């Protein structure tokens, strides 16, 4: 149970960063921290005590496997997370080239 709570605290740290930081790069970092806590939560849900990795060994068929379904979901989510992060960083580069700053308040003031 402690692991679930620590995982939730990690999510809250990322959320705190997204809400309070004013720097675009730090917001992107906080977003990826939130993502990571979600991946960890899914992996925790599927864990079974004494289970082995879900790879079938024909020589030893009676075994306890950990749940392969959350792992398959996280496998998809990790790759999508890379795509969104790359997109985010591309937009940040564009904003930096136009406004010469990462600070969202200054970008808001320079709008025109």
């Amino acid at each position, binding site marked *: *149970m*402690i*692991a*679930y709570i*620590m995982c*939730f*605290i*990690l999510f809250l*740290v990322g*959320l705190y*960063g997204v*809400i*309070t930081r004013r*720097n675009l*790069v*730090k917001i992107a*970092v*906080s977003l*990826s*921290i939130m993502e*990571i806590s979600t*991946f*960890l939560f899914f*992996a*925790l*849900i*599927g*864990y079974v*005590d004494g289970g082995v*990795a*879900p*790879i*079938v*060994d*024909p020589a030893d068929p009676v075994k306890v*496997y*950990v*749940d*392969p*379904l959350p*792992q*398959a979901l*996280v*496998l998809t989510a990790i*790759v*999508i997370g*890379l*795509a969104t*992060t*790359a*997109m985010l*960083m591309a*937009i*940040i*580069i*564009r904003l*930096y080239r136009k406004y010469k700053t*990462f*600070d969202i*308040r200054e970008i808001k003031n320079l709008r025109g």
Partner: protein
Amino acid sequence: MDLAISVIVGFMILGALYAIHAKDLLSSVIACGIVGYSLVICFLLLKAPDLAIVQIVVDTITLIIMVAVVLDSSREESYSKPDTQGYITAITGLLIIVILLYFFAVSIQTLDVLGKSSLRMAEYYIEGAAQKTGSANLVTGVVFDFRGYDTMGEAVVLVTAVLGVLTILRLKGKK
């Protein structure tokens, strides 16, 4: 297992806090790498080798992209003393966190204890999956056979993201 995971996640929280508060953006990005690579160790402890391999590759690429962006800039986070807007966002954030804590306390009671999860959904996938899909690795079987259309959608999303990045970086901004 619960304790080991908790200790590693504790280090991840420390790394995340440093990443959020560091003065230099480069150290912030590297501290984000701490969190990502600790996740790899967690995956290995949780018996998910496929996820560990993918996460190592993805985290390295993310780190490279972020370092490339940061090195191109002045690297400093401009500090300014808190204003009214800052206090309002802080209070809003606190409120959101309290609400989330309430829902977490409600929902954690429906979760199985760590390590005692019942495989009620995965039983069908595990039973004879090696014969049905021809793949000894059950995760690969689920990703590429039972949920093949999901994987196709994922490939479409990836292609769209690459096209989006190329378009954004090649646009000529309005002067």
